[in-house]
């Protein structure tokens, strides 16, 4: 009993981690499966075939490339716009500031399926051809609110005296922004950008409504799940997971080195 009481926090922590990571583990394990038939639901035999031919499935790598392109562009545009909006909201007092402040949260609060349907209505009424560009516009829209929220939190906690100090030390407006404001806001901007990338890459509902004949990776997975799931999907999933883990570890290592005493 004493032992249990002492270690309860650790046990609870490990259980939570297991709950979070178990699905990932299953995905990884089944990426080495050699299934009988079309569905990859039952373990039969260890094989590295899928890892050797990740693009062995028709159309899959094409959809992956479209998803990556959309995610990169949506991240770039929404991060740039969102950062500027966040600075404007925190630093300046302008008419309708309050309204903008609350409207920016709306895409986060609204059911995605409603937003998807109304976007489709809008695009159709405007006579837009559904495809890459409509998906991109939709993604930028919903990523924007997440970027604004992340950057705003950072800018709000920034001491305005730091910029005054920079100006006092002969930095003009451009220099002040580049040398002081931007580096200090960078963690918030990076967090917003990562969030935007992740959200855009795996969005399904809004994309499905506004894609026309374009097929993104989540749509491909959904489509193939009806007819049989190729092992390569697990390979891509595992690869994405590994890339994310490497990013986090590198980021943490860099952060630790920065905070370590130089002595």
């Amino acid at each position, binding site marked *: 009993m004493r032992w249990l009481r002492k270690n309860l926090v650790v046990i609870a922590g490990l259980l939570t981690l297991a709950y979070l990571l178990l699905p990932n583990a299953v995905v990884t394990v089944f990426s080495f499966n050699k299934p009988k038939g079309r569905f990859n639901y039952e373990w039969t035999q260890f094989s590295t075939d899928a890892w050797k031919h990740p693009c062995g499935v028709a159309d899959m790598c094409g959809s992956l490339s479209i998803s990556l392109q959309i995610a990169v562009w949506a991240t770039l545009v929404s991060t740039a716009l969102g950062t500027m909006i966040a600075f404007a909201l925190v630093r300046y007092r302008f008419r309708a500031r309050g309204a903008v402040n609350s409207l920016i949260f709306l895409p986060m609060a609204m059911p995605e399926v409603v937003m998807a349907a109304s976007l489709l209505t809008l695009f159709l009424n405007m006579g837009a051809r559904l495809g890459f560009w409509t998906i991109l516009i939709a993604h930028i829209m919903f990523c924007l609110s997440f970027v604004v929220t992340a950057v705003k939190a950072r800018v709000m906690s920034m*001491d305005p*005296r*730091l910029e*005054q*100090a*920079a*100006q*006092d*030390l*002969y*930095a*003009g407006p451009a*220099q*002040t922004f580049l*040398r*002081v404001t931007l*580096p*200090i806001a960078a963690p918030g901007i990076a967090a917003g950008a990562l969030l935007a990338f992740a959200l855009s890459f795996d969005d399904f509902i809004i994309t499905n409504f506004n894609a026309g004949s374009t097929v993104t990776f989540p749509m491909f997975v959904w489509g193939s799940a009806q007819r049989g799931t190729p092992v390569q999907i697990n390979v891509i999933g595992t690869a994405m997971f590994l890339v994310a883990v490497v990013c986090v570890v590198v980021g943490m290592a860099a952060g630790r080195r*920065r*905070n370590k*005493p*130089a*002595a």
Partner: protein
Amino acid sequence: MTTSSSTATEHGGDVRLTGISKTYDNGFTAVRPLDLTVPAGSFFALLGASGCGKTTTLRMIAGLEEPTTGTVRLGDQDVTGLPPYKRPVNTVFQSYALFPHLDIFENVAFGLRRRGIKSVKKQVEEMLDLVQLGEQARKKPHQLSGGQQQRVAVARALINHPQVLLLDEPLGALDLKLRRQMQLELKRIQTEVGITFIHVTHDQEEAMTMADTVAVMNAGTVEQLGAPTDLYENPRSTFVANFLGTSNFVSCEISGRGGDELTLTAGDGKLALFADRCSAPTTTGGKLLLGVRPEKISIVHADDAASVPVGRNRLTGRIKDSSFIGVSTQYVVEGPLCDGFEVYAQNVERDPRLVPGAEVVLHWNPAHSFGLDATQDVEAGAAKVEEDAAA
């Protein structure tokens, strides 16, 4: 308030504020039109309670606040319209405002780099040695103690050899012992580099210890300006008298004049005051506040009243309270004319009869009295000191 022309050219000249004022958009007037000249090479303190306009005045010199009226001149140059990054002044901010993403070396080098100076290494190392932080060059600001951060802030400003160094309550965040140490340190640096320092503080002791000249500010105006001893011995308003140290006041009427000496009547007592120590009109029949500092007063037991020399100002009363603080004893005395008088007596030979309830005679040299206009609030400035001490 003038300086020789040789020092003026050497250090870039005096700081001259002319008719400067600041009214914010919300209608609050932080600084009423004021004129102020800070001689080149001096250590100048702006002293006042929070909200008196001292920091706003400083920020207008730095260019971080735009004056509503008036001009700021540095030597011969009118800098009123210049942005902060074009003014040859640097600021040590209240919370230091060190750049958290840069190490100590880069913090100190910031100003040099912005002015396009390429080889900064030697200068930065020299400056870090001056503030005794040579070993810490590669640390980040948050890894240093408060006192070290404060020294980095000073180094970061001084390395640019500004014409004027502005210090905005730079010692406010430090504990008492460190504060005393840094006061001496700053004074040493100022003497060494010979740059004009303008120091904003609400701590009267700090201002008096460090500055050559102190300007006492109240409600957006300068109440009085002068050397610390001059302000302390010859306050010209009850605000200055109470804000700098403690003062006792007696309301009097001028009953006569003999040469330089005024004779005052207060109730049935007679007191003397020298006319040159009086900042109010000295016409016979006029009302006055006679002030005297607690440490100038001698206290004797009523039984020894005969021992008081002739020619001294004397009042009678009863000890209400006494507190022993080692080097001295502080008495609060109540009497018909001296209600709540504070008296500080050195503990040389303590009289055991001087306990609460004892009847006493207070006496002091008339030359140690000062006279003020009787129309002022006797308590002005006193409460504000306590508020700051409590904060």
